[in-house]
């Protein structure tokens, strides 16, 4: 009789263990969730360390690119902040070149660039101005292709990092093939690295060095031989290449810093999730132990009777 009771109790316990109460996770499920979250935390913290190491290299390249590109400030002006910009100074026909990343899990870098690019497109459209877009980077291509795809004329994706001046020369050749000389300005939109925690969206306006009469550029210089138009064409292409090089280095450093802080947040969130799941798991475990003790004690009490 006692054996029959014990068998029945074991059977009912087995059924209760396999039965899932709707909306409530079992102990095993919670344990699996904890293990999965621990694995994710390991991945995100190793990604953070990899990004920190890559940021060091990208920062070094950016600090060399800044003085290399300093001469363009005299011709094209300083880069401007996208935040609260009115873009009134943009001319009738612009070629927009947004810089985005190739890989994801890098925080908001690509979303900010896409948003600013769409903002510029709508401001130019409302002012009766025209624009076309050449996208740099796969993430920007995907986001802008969905929203302003009809404006895109070229894209460069799957860019091998780290970037070099030859890459900037290639991108400039793509821009020239897209007709950069026929536009009134080339506008580079990129993320500018400030420090490992901060990056800002900036834009640069590069206008062709051409004009007649009063608009003729560099009137104070004499050109020997008198091939000013050729020199201006070469200078324009070199200015675009140098600016693209600097913007690419800046964007790469900003991407790594953003990825680092995104992975840091993800690791911290995973840690908090593990803590709350562990409490839930312990509660479920204690409930199971209590149930088993009650059954044993009830069974023992029944036997005594």
């Amino acid at each position: 009789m006692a054996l029959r009771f014990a068998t029945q109790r074991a059977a009912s316990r087995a059924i209760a263990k396999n039965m899932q109460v709707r909306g409530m996770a079992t102990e095993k499920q919670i344990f699996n969730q904890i293990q999965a979250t621990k694995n994710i935390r390991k991945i995100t913290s190793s990604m953070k360390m990899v990004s920190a190491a890559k940021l060091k290299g990208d920062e070094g390249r950016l600090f060399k690119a800044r003085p290399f590109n300093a001469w363009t400030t005299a011709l094209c002006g300083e880069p401007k902040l996208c935040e609260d910009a009115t873009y009134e100074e943009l001319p009738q026909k612009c070629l927009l070149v947004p810089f985005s990343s190739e890989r994801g899990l890098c925080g908001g870098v690509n979303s900010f660039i896409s948003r600013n690019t769409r903002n510029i497109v709508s401001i130019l459209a409302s002012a009766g101005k025209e624009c076309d877009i050449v996208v740099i980077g796969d993430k920007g291509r995907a986001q802008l292709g969905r929203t302003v795809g009809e404006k895109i004329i070229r894209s460069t994706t799957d860019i091998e990092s780290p970037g070099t001046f030859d890459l900037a020369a290639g991108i400039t050749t793509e821009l020239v093939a897209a007709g950069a000389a026929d536009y009134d300005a080339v506008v580079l939109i990129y993320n500018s690295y400030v420090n490992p925690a901060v990056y800002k969206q900036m834009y640069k306006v590069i206008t062709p060095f051409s004009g007649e009469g009063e608009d003729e550029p560099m009137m104070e210089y004499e050109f020997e031989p008198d091939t000013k138009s050729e020199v201006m064409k070469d200078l324009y292409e070199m200015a675009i290449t140098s600016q693209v090089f600097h913007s690419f280095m800046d964007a790469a450093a900003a991407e790594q810093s953003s990825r680092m802080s995104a992975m840091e947040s993800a690791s911290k969130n995973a840690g908090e999730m593990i803590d709350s799941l562990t409490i839930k798991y312990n509660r479920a475990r204690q409930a199971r132990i209590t149930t088993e003790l009650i059954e044993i004690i009830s069974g023992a009490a029944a036997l005594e009777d």
Partner: protein
Amino acid sequence: MATPTTFWRLAGMSYVQYVTRASSAVRNAAKEPAKSKLAANSKFSYNASVWEGGVQGKKVEIDVLSKAGI
């Protein structure tokens, strides 16, 4: 269009192409170990595609400057 006067334009190169070729020549002229250290500066690779009416065209791999802009 006026006849070009600079030697790189006469050779069919833009100024940027001429500058990158000149830089590669200087890097190749360096002695070891600088030469192998600088070799990576000549390398780049990306895929370019032309868009028509909001639709992306075929991707073309570009790893030398002469292929770019086609």
